[in-house]
């Protein structure tokens, strides 16, 4: 099936981006297609390449960039991003900044949409 995913919270601060990542990984392992992951609200903070967590913790941004390498579209809401100081200068590999229309298009394409947050 085709799954869409919405991430509403920032990394480390809130578990929802971990949950979304684990869900996406499990869905892909079962052969589902991820039509996209949309990062909204504080979720946009997942996309900064300046993220520098402790050595003994997971690297949430890199996890997402690896998901993108497997062909998943990672879309960061431009309006939410601008308010929070995220722009192309700090955007990590695999993410792209775009408008809310992308969320609508994902919802139209997907058979299922799962929201993580808020």
């Amino acid at each position, binding site marked *: 099936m085709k799954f869409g995913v919405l991430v509403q919270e920032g990394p480390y601060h809130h*578990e929802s981006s971990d*949950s979304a990542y684990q*869900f996406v990984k*499990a869905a892909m392992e079962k052969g589902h297609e991820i039509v996209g992951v949309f990062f909204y609200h504080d979720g946009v903070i997942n996309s900064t390449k300046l993220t520098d967590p402790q050595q003994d913790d997971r690297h949430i941004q890199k996890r997402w960039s690896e998901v993108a390498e497997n062909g998943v579209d990672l879309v960061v809401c431009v309006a939410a991003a601008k308010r929070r100081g995220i722009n192309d200068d700090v955007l990590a590999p695999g993410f792209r900044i775009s408008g809310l229309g992308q969320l609508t298009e994902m919802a139209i394409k997907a058979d*299922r949409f*799962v*929201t*993580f*947050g808020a």
Partner: protein
Amino acid sequence: MLHLVNKSPYYASSLDSCTKFAKKGAPILLIEDGVYGAMAGTSFESKMADIVKDFEVYALKADLMVRGIDKVAPGVKEVDYAGFVELVEQHTTTTWS
């Protein structure tokens, strides 16, 4: 419809809202801090006993483990992420946070 709940029932009214609007018999999956509602032997257990009569209640195994919860209340089923995906295959989904 599958309902995700990710907040502790001691802190937020998310699970109350979920059970208010979810269709009787619908699956409810407790994730993140939502799994505290599934812990056995708490003051919330009697409320959970009522909820499992009306709904299929699941708790996400990984979130139980990370919180050190080794026993869930009667009637609550544990699922792993593969089981979470299967629930989503079977149902459209919404989230109560």
